[in-house]
């Protein structure tokens, strides 16, 4: 037995099933799955520019006869929804398994959404492992299910499955032979003439899946005292089993389609039937649609956030252990841009300009927090550029602050590029800042098209960002050093005061990419306690009234951002 996280177990299961191709875009809590898969023997794995591309590469690879694993976070499934829905028409050749990793509680996401809805809407079966051991075995079996029913299969995870390590027994790799590719336009060319018959095939498949799911051993009854019956799935099952030890539980391993007969039989075997699920109504509605009556816990389950044994016991009005209230004088500890982060000066200057900043997804979203407070919006990958255009349209003809989009290099590659094409095409104005820190930093420094680093370190090429932007028709494209205050200040000023669309590429590698740093800075007795250095939000700088500023020597990476702001030459190296 070894300890594997749910993500590691999914990678292991895919490898054991003989999958040879892996495709993904990084996103918490899914990222490590593809990183681990990529290190296995005899596999090819790549980061794609976004999840839609990944799922399409996966369809192609499956069509070509290989077993394929695609991984993404829940919001990535939104991006990939288009190919997913039609892949449920074409079906597969080699088995095709897609990981959708949800983030109830929003530990690292902009929303909480339930990927079960996608499975149901696309008519794609979804498996719900409840721990690492099931993550491995379900994933392994999912490839067989995919080929048997000629359909992609979704493995639905959540942060508590993906990021919980538990004991797992690993097995051998199956000797899977890539299936031969045969041209078959009626299966793979989804134009109306062919899609109509495939829709019929899909309906037949749904009936076949509905029959199979009644017998599937993944849907398991755990006998209890028969008074309370609970239907649940995934990691949520673990909370239920602990919170309600006497309950009879129907633990669903397949959550679309549902085993209607099994559910009805289970309902008959218990006095009261409940559905327990996390921040969603999916399972509740789907079980009700099976024609059974559900009871509601006396205090109700929360409609949002994560569950825990205590939360479930409270919902059922059961005794819970006492606890000591927290002190109310505790300072929060939100994450912050690292000392030396090359994004810092850009945000400080945007704040000084009082610009309307449309932001995007990445480390730099932290620029929204005090003291920088330099972001007005953040919605989804690539939205900074498109929202800036929309904002300009609404504010046109008014006396308004400059509108500036801020986006990272990887996010720009993911979907900011298509937004920028649209802005240029529609003669949009404004300023776009691409914070090119040469990596996909937030998720742990993955490669992307603009740094030319690939997942398995295969040779690639760096896409020439400035050439790409120029080729779109942007005339004012500048490549700038974000660590130089005067450069940042002057260029933001000139770009935002012109009517033309400007793209400022601020290029400097993420500070975490290089462990070697120049000598740290220190504060001399010239310090007047003016406090300006504390306004850049560097975790290495502290300010004590009456005593002035101080720099934490072990945290300081010698970037000198603060010294450029000091008007009294009080911050010096060494």
């Amino acid at each position, binding site marked *: *037995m070894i*300890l594997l996280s749910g993500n590691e177990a999914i990678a292991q299961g895919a490898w054991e099933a003989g999958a040879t191709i892996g495709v993904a875009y990084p996103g*918490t*809590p899914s990222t490590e799955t593809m990183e681990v898969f990529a290190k296995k023997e005899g596999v090819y794995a790549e980061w794609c520019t976004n999840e839609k591309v990944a799922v399409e590469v996966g369809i192609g690879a499956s069509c070509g006869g290989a077993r394929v694993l695609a991984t993404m976070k829940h919001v990535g499934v939104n991006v990939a929804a288009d190919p997913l829905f039609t892949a449920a028409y074409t079906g597969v050749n080699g088995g095709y398994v897609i990981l959708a990793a949800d983030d109830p509680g929003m*530990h*690292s996401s902009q929303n909480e959404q339930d990927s079960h809805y996608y499975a149901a809407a696309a008519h794609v079966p979804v498996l719900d492992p409840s*721990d690492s051991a099931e993550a491995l075995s379900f994933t392994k079996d999912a490839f067989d299910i995919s080929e048997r029913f000629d359909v992609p299969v979704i493995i639905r995870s959540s*942060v*508590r499955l993906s*990021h*919980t*390590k*538990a*004991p797992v027994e690993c097995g051998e790799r199956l000797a899977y032979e890539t299936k031969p590719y045969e041209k078959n336009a009626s299966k793979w060319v989804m134009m109306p003439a062919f899609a109509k018959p495939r829709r019929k095939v899909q309906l037949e498949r749904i009936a076949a899946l509905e029959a199979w799911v009644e017998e599937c051993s993944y849907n398991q009854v755990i006998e209890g005292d028969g008074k309370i019956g609970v239907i649940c799935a995934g*990691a949520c099952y*673990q*909370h239920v*089993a*602990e*919170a309600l030890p006497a309950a009879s539980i129907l633990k669903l391993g397949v959550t679309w389609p549902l085993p209607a007969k099994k559910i009805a039989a289970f309902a008959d075997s218990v006095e009261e039937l409940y559905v327990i699920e996390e921040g969603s109504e999916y399972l509740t509605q789907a079980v009700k649609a099976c024609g059974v009556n559900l009871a509601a816990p006396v205090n109700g389950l929360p409609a949002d956030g*994560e569950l*825990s*044994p*205590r*939360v479930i016991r409270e919902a059922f009005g059961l005794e*819970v*252990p*006492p*606890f*000591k*209230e*927290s*002190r109310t*004088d*505790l*300072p*929060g*500890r*939100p*994450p*912050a*841009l*690292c000392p030396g982060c090359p994004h810092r000066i850009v945000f400080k200057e945007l704040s000084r300009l009082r610009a309307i900043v449309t932001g995007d997804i990445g*480390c730099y979203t*932290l620029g929204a927090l*005090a*003291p920088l407070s330099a972001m007005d919006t953040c919605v989804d990958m690539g939205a900074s550029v498109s929202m800036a255009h929309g904002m300009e349209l609404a504010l046109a003809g008014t006396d308004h602050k400059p509108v500036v989009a801020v986006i990272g290099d990887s996010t720009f590659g993911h979907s900011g590029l298509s937004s920028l094409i649209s802005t240029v095409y529609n003669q949009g104005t404004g300023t776009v800042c691409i914070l090119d820190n040469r990596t996909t930093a*937030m*998720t*742990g420094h993955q490669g992307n098209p603009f740094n030319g680093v690939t997942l398995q370190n295969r040779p690639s090429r760096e896409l020439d960002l400035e050439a790409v932007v120029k080729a779109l028709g942007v005339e004012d494209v500048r490549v700038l050093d974000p660590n130089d205050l005067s450069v940042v200040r002057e260029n933001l000023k000139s770009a935002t005061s012109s009517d033309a669309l400007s793209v400022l590429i601020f290029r400097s590698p993420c500070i975490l990419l290089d462990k070697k740093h120049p000598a740290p800075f220190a504060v001399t007795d010239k310090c007047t306690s003016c*406090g300006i250095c*504390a*306004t850049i*939000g560097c*975790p290495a*700088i*502290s*300010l*004590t*009234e009456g005593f002035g500023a101080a720099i934490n020597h072990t945290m300081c990476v010698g970037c000198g951002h603060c010294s450029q702001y000091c008007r009294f030459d009080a911050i010096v190296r060494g």
Partner: protein
Amino acid sequence: MKTTTVLLVGVGGQGTISAADILARAIMGAGMQVKISEIHGMSQRGGSVTTVVRFGPEVKSMVSDLGAADVIVSFEVTEALRAIPQLSENGSMIVNAEEIKPLTALTGRVPMPENAEGYLNDMGALLLPANEIALKAGNPKTMNVVLLGALSKRLDIPTEVWEEAISGRVPPKTIEANLAAFHAGREYIASIEA
């Protein structure tokens, strides 16, 4: 035997996750079931971090809960205060007596909590200067293993099993330093509880 819940809390970058890994190895070495739950992502950027280790003959849920932690090991004083509601009625706390100010407090926008160590002492928490102990034992980076040494006095896992778990997890060059740190943590507890 019920499931035991250990909560490791601290600030991103302090080594809570590797400490949890060592603890889990020791638990498995002692023949018990274990689950470790951790939250990645934003924690890399200096935020509060929490890792939950649950073990026993059988482990179901992987999360901690209000009033549920049998032991809280805090790598930092303010995070120990933040974790108090998680502590069970008969639970114990082991706290590294180090204060790391969050950004808001560094810049004087909010004050640090007053009398944090005194408050923890009054609650019966065990405070130890783990950074200092690690430094004396030979390597300041072994602070997390000093805390595991202290924790080992609260758990029923044989010392040899701990030693094996540490040796199997830390970089080979640092095994000796980490074992020294582990024993220094144990001895510190023994000395104050003697």
